[in-house]
């Protein structure tokens, strides 16, 4: 597991049915590109988050393939239309096989 990978999300606590809500997500991660060399000239192995997904009540909202050019602490901001109360599940997939998850509930009504 990458050191210090820590997800953060912001989802409004409440919304009206049919509202389009703004969602912000960030995960702290070094996003080592695999292009750099250390002081001895050895390539520093690639270690990035390669996929990010968000689901709402089991339905996929966003599914992102992430490439090495994405910078450290990747930040995603997107919107989702909510018709009923439920839970957003956010998942980040690390190159090393680790999976980081965060959840946030929203009250619709």
């Amino acid at each position, binding site marked *: 597991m990458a050191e*210090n990978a*820590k997800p*953060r999300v*912001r989802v409004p606590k409440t919304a009206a049915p049919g509202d389009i809500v703004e969602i*912000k997500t*960030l995960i*702290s991660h070094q996003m080592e590109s695999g292009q750099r060399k250390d002081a001895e000239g050895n390539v520093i192995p690639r270690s990035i988050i390669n996929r990010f997904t968000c689901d709402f009540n089991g339905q996929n909202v966003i599914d992102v393939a992430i490439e090495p050019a994405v910078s*450290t*602490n990747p930040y995603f901001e997107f919107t989702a239309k909510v018709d009923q109360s439920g839970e957003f599940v956010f998942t980040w997939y690390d190159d090393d096989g680790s999976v980081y998850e965060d959840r946030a509930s929203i009250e619709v009504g």
Partner: protein
Amino acid sequence: MRSHATTLAAAALWGLGSLGAALAGPVEDTLTVTTDAGEITLVTTAPAPEHLRDVFDTIYSGWHFREDETRDLERDDFDNPGMVFVDRGRDMWNAEIGANGESCASCHGGPESMKGLRAVTPRVDPESGKLMLVEDYINECVTERMGREAWGMTSNEMKDMLALISLQSRGEIVNVAIDGPARPFWEKGRELYYTRFGQLEMSCANCHEDNWGNFIRADHLSQGQVNGFPTYRLKDAGMVTAQQRFVGCVRDTRAETFKAGSDEFKALELYVASRGNGLAVEGVSVRH
């Protein structure tokens, strides 16, 4: 008063007037931050403290000297990249890192117990008579109560913890003591502030007192306030402490610098902090 207007007039004589006048000076703006606990408006301009009255009428946080995009990053904790380091500091706060399994939390409770500390440091410890930065208090705990080796003054652990502790005082007004036992340290700091260093023979005052609001090459000079420190610096993609900034500034004059945490820079931090008495602690600010 060593006035701003005079400096601008001098710039005009050099034929830089039109550019300088158009861009110079702090931006008029208000810093309201969206936090998890609601919105908070920070004091970023204030009347100059008594001891600075013959120099400035008004003191400004460095926030006023940065571009729109940089200022915006500080308006929302979610957008503020410094909060990543605060989160890391919180993990460390709760971690049982002491020789006997102590954590910061096991003595102090939550980090909220540190509320107010950042606003009044550097300060003289009444028992030891030493001038203490927040970093010194942290290291005192780390070494004496936790039985660990001292953290490096600008190490990641130190800066993460400093970010967490500083954030607890966000919005509180900087009010460091400059009289009583602090006086000799303050006077030493003041002397350093006005001492020219390096091949370029520049003092802190040459930039931050004589030329604030003007440009030094591409950099918009602020008044050199430290109320926003530790700050997330976009250039470094990491946290920078006031002590580190002092090293950077003195190095830029092409001088051999004092070390972060040296007696000289601690005294300087007290003096510089006192120049910002009246501004709000910004917790973790964002600068470029």
